[in-house]
């Protein structure tokens, strides 16, 4: 029993360090096209990348998602490649959901936790083949992934820079892809993925997205990125394709009731204050927890908390009377008892309602559902108008679009 044999198995790393931090605001592979489309010049920092907040008109960009086809650069999303004979077992140990039930050619939304069961991040797991996966998320987790891989025969590497990504979302997105020549695209059901020929290589297209609408995500080696953009823009010309920025996407995702790490919950490793960390059941991800699948990180803590009724918060969708977005409003019970906070809110243009995502302190939102109010401070020409609006807990998503899941999708 040599100490070195205690050092667990051959986890190999392709690339430990990414060079992203050397550039303050790195460009994505699509930057020449984005820059050309950027009329408003509103930028924000997405994981170190210069990403557009809006490109030409935030409002119309949103409607491109809902009535045309919107093209959004998701290259800054963190991407990990996970390969090897025990890649499935590793992913199963890392994440909450049962990966043995994720078939090759499928994608699922999942999350992973630290030892205390607090959520480190959520993301999408792509099963590219029986023993190849891609994990996409907001934060960076390579050390965590590598340490979680001890004892597994698996190779893990970050491929954020090497792989470019695009989201193509909206009712005409299918027609765009078909006209771009991706034969067979009509067969993709929601959460399916497949490889399609592109130039000298291939593009991986999945029927996924962050909008609650019909839509696709495309991943391609960075060298083939610009031709892919051009191919879509040309094919999409008659289908109303438009590049968009994050603000429009954010509206769509709130309408779809989807949460964002470090916006709707604080990722465990980011939280400075101990009470800001959240268990999956506290942010609406309890459905992912699979107690029967074997060990996964945080299992014991999560099941203990669940059994001991130690869940402190609950994440809910709210429908709020009136039309003023209740962003970051405090939620009250009976107008006087503070019970939670709104993390995201908009006037939802498609739902035509004021909607919000909020975290409430149990039993509010869990056992006590009535008589909830939000306190909105609306700045009106240098004076706050404070209004109390009634809020009703409603299921998420706030909109349900037939076209999101119809297969084959409707033509335009």
């Amino acid at each position: 029993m040599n100490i070195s044999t205690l050092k667990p198995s051959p986890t190999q790393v392709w690339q430990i360090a990414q060079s992203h931090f050397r550039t303050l605001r790195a460009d994505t592979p699509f930057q020449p096209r984005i820059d050309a489309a950027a009329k408003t010049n509103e930028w924000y920092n997405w994981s170190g990348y210069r990403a557009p907040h809006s490109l030409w008109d935030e409002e119309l960009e949103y409607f491109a998602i809902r009535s045309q086809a919107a093209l959004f650069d998701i290259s800054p999303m963190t991407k990990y490649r996970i390969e090897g004979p025990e890649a499935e077992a590793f992913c199963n140990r890392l994440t909450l959901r049962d990966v043995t039930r994720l078939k090759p050619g499928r994608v699922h939304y999942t999350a992973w936790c630290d030892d205390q069961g607090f959520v480190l991040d959520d993301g999408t797991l792509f099963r590219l083949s029986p023993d190849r996966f891609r994990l996409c998320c907001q934060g960076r987790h390579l050390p965590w992934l590598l340490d979680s891989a001890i004892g597994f025969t698996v190779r893990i590497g970050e491929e954020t820079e090497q792989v470019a990504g695009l989201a193509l979302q909206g009712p005409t997105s299918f027609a765009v892809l078909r006209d771009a020549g991706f034969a067979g695209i009509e067969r993709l059901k929601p959460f399916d993925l497949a490889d399609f020929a592109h130039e000298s290589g291939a593009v991986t297209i999945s029927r996924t997205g962050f909008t609650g609408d019909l839509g696709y995500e495309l991943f391609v080696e960075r060298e083939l990125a610009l031709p892919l953009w051009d191919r879509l823009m040309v094919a999409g010309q008659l289908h109303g394709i438009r590049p968009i920025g994050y603000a429009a996407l954010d509206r769509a995702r709130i309408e779809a009731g989807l949460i964002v790490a470090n916006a709707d919950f604080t990722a465990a490793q980011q939280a400075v204050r101990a009470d800001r960390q959240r268990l999956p059941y506290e942010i609406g991800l309890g459905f992912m927890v699979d107690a029967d699948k074997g060990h996964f990180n945080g299992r014991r803590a999560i099941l203990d908390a669940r059994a001991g009724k130690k869940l402190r918060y609950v994440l809910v969708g709210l429908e709020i009377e009136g039309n003023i977005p209740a962003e970051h409003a405090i939620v009250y019970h009976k107008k006087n008892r503070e019970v939670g906070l709104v993390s995201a809110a908009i006037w939802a243009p498609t739902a035509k309602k004021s909607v919000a995502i909020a975290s409430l302190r149990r039993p509010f939102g869990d056992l006590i559902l009535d008589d909830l109010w939000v306190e909105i401070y609306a700045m009106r020409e240098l004076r706050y108008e404070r209004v109390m609006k009634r809020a009703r807990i409603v299921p998420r998503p706030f909109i349900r679009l037939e076209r999101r899941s119809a297969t084959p999708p409707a033509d335009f």
Partner: protein
Amino acid sequence: MTSSDRTVWDAIVIGGGHNGLICATLLAKGRRNVLLLEANAEMGGAARTEEFFPGFRDSTAHVLNRLHPEVVKALDLEELGLDLLRGASGSTFAPSVVLSKDGAPLTLHGAYGETLTGASAAEQAAWKDLRVQLLRYAGVLKPFLSRRPPEFGSRSPGGLAALGQAALAMKRLGREDMRDFLRVLLMNVHDLLDEQLSDDRLKGLLAFDAVLGSHLGPRSPTSLLGLYYRLAGEIGGAPGAQVVPKGGMGAVIATIRAAAEHAGVALCTGASVAKIVVESGRAVGLALASGEEIHADTIVSAVNPTTTLLTLVGAPLLDTGLVRKVKNIRMKGDVAKLNLALDGVPDFPGVAAQDLHGRLVIAPSPDHVERAFNPAKYGEFSPEPVMEITLPSLTDPSLAPQDGCILSANVQYAPYALKEGWETGKPKFLAAIMAQLEAHAPGIGRLARHAELLTPADIEVRYLMPGGHWHHGELQADQMLFSRPVSGWSGYDTPIERLYLAGAGSHPGGGISGLPGLNAARRILAARAER
């Protein structure tokens, strides 16, 4: 215990070191149906006695100085024949002799120097004061170092009791002493000795005892804690006392083994556990290297915590944060073992014949110990190593042939991961040790018929002690108490339900004390009662 045997055990204890034996015995005395599995052909772990040359036998752990009185009592060891008070030739405790190359030795008699010979009158007086102080302060720490570690945020009666006892002991010190206790607690032993003593030999011995078994030099911060740990031990009710047990360490193990048999523990040697079987987060049994599976309600691992968690359970079944902590447990040993088969009793000039039954220490000054440590920081062995020597065959003639003699030495510093590798390093290190011995016992080289040197790498293989580490994990402030073996899992429980730790890697630590085994057994019996 064949596969057709359908017995389901209440508990299986892995590892027949003294802690495993003690834990198993107490569980059996608590009416559990207990099986103990030991990989080796002999019980006893690093305390077992083995032949290293035809007719010559020795054990790696050779001095008994901390077998806890509660263990002695709970296992009825005295009734079973353990006779701690009668060491060699009817005398009581073994003396410690600090050898000197060119002058008279200095000798601590009784329980850690109740009397001191070979030093000036002034030094004797200074030692008397310091000894009282050291034992008082060690006494404050004693409850911490015997009960299960206090837990943060828990109201467990055991943990609170330990805290309460320590608080009481501190109060009893009085205000001045309490201040001083807190002042010196995390000091290095070198500075403290310089404050109070002047004889280099005496300081050398204390410095050696403070760092023996750890990767520290006397000038390393917190090195004084090691001396407190040593002095928190007692023998026959006398704090600080030591014996070279009659019949050798093997006799101690034989008595503990007899207690286990007496209590009805099923003992099985040559049974190497390869895997702990876990289902839905709970330990349900184990698999032997032979492939055989055995089931049990509770599994107790009295082997190394890293081995237990990373090898027997396996990282895939543990949370990542815990795996990180376990991987970071420092356990690279620095102590080598020398077993010498001699043709006669060596001559240590100036040492009285009856003192040869005691412990002979080569540590001429604290600076010498510190200089011996320096190369170990960089992966090299000490060119002039420090060591403690016993001649066990003087206490138990059966260990050597007639006219033969055994010299047993714990030698420091021999870094586990020697930069040049032990294959070429070992002969060089042996030569350095023999040169040291020759300088203190002229002619010993000619008496030596056979020398067996076990480096930490050899100890790792022979005793299945990762890193060859004395304590199964460094015993320093950051790896003690509620941080032993790792923070968050310090009280013998593990994140695997019904899997417990009971070896030296758990609180309070190593040495032949039996405390990890005793505390673990109490914890397991209490947990069972809660179910």
